[in-house]
């Protein structure tokens, strides 16, 4: 149910912007913030409830200092916004069955490979999307439609690379956490720790990353080349991390 304040916010004559325009502006619009682009996928009613609860919990945090309820609310809203809507057409990439390769040995004795769609790359090996070297994150976000039409580049990441060797750029999500700590999406150091702890038998020499916001059709066409390159690393098992 709408409140009086909500009704006034919807009055474009008063504010020049509808609430729908406001919430959609966080998704590649005037207020673009990829942490909150999910607002575009909500109804006005759902989004207004999100903001109401957000402010309510913020008010509580003044006294408690506890930010967990705020993060929990945003997390729940993401799930709500990205859930398939009733009556929406099925994805063309829906499968009733899937391939399955049994493991031949315990993971503790296996060599583990890694592919992430995080968009990490070596600073001295910029994939130069659209021929642009040094494209910034902001520029990548501005060109998200171009990324979604093109095939992605697969970047090779040495398993012993240092944090400063890497950069991350991806037009589809907020890369702040991945910039602070690559292990949130590209677990280079975590896999080294896992090997040291005996959880895995070893690591492939090279890992891989690409920006996952891409043309699915073009990706599928170049996949055989990727699979051949990944196989050269001779992994026994693969860890895959989508963003």
């Amino acid at each position, binding site marked *: 149910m709408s409140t009086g304040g909500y009704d006034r916010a919807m009055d474009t004559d008063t504010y020049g912007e509808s609430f729908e325009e406001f919430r959609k502006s966080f998704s590649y619009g005037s207020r673009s913030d990829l942490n909150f682009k999910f607002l575009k996928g909500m109804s006005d009613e759902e989004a207004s409830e999100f903001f109401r609860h957000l402010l309510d919990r913020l008010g509580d945090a003044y006294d408690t200092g506890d930010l967990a309820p705020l993060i929990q609310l945003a997390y729940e809203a993401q799930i709500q916004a990205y859930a398939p809507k009733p009556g929406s057409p099925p994805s063309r990439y829906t499968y009733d069955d899937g391939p399955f390769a049994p493991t031949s040995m315990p993971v503790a004795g296996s060599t583990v490979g890694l592919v992430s769609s995080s968009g990490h790359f070596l600073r001295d090996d910029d994939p130069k999307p659209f021929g642009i070297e040094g494209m910034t994150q902001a520029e990548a976000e501005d060109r998200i439609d171009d990324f979604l039409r093109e095939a992605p580049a697969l970047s090779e990441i040495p398993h012993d690379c240092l944090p400063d060797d890497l950069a991350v750029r991806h037009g589809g999500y907020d890369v702040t*956490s991945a910039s602070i700590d690559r292990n*949130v999406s590209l677990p280079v150091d*975590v896999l080294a720790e896992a090997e040291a702890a005996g959880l895995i038998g070893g690591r492939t020499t090279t890992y891989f990353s690409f920006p996952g916001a891409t043309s699915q059709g073009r990706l599928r066409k170049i996949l055989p080349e990727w699979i051949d390159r990944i196989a050269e690393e001779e992994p026994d098992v693969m860890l895959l991390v989508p963003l």
Partner: protein
Amino acid sequence: MSVGHVARAIEETGTPTVVVMVRAFRHVAERMTLPRTVITPFPMGRPLGAAGDTETQLATVTAAFDLLDRAAGPGEIIDLDLPFRPGWSTSLP
């Protein structure tokens, strides 16, 4: 969805795979019938845990390794119950 295609293609060559993704994308794992999937209760952009939280990140990949060791068929999905930030008493729902 991109990584789903990669997972299926690698698995078809005979190499076992496990995917770790945030809960907002759980429906993708379901409809693509990925070989093995670990769902993490974390915000988007942080599928393995919060920045600097090495303990949770290691626990997440350990869960993925456990699933590799025990999964008997395609499409198995496990939902992790881990706190997003160190010191939080409960996980996100």
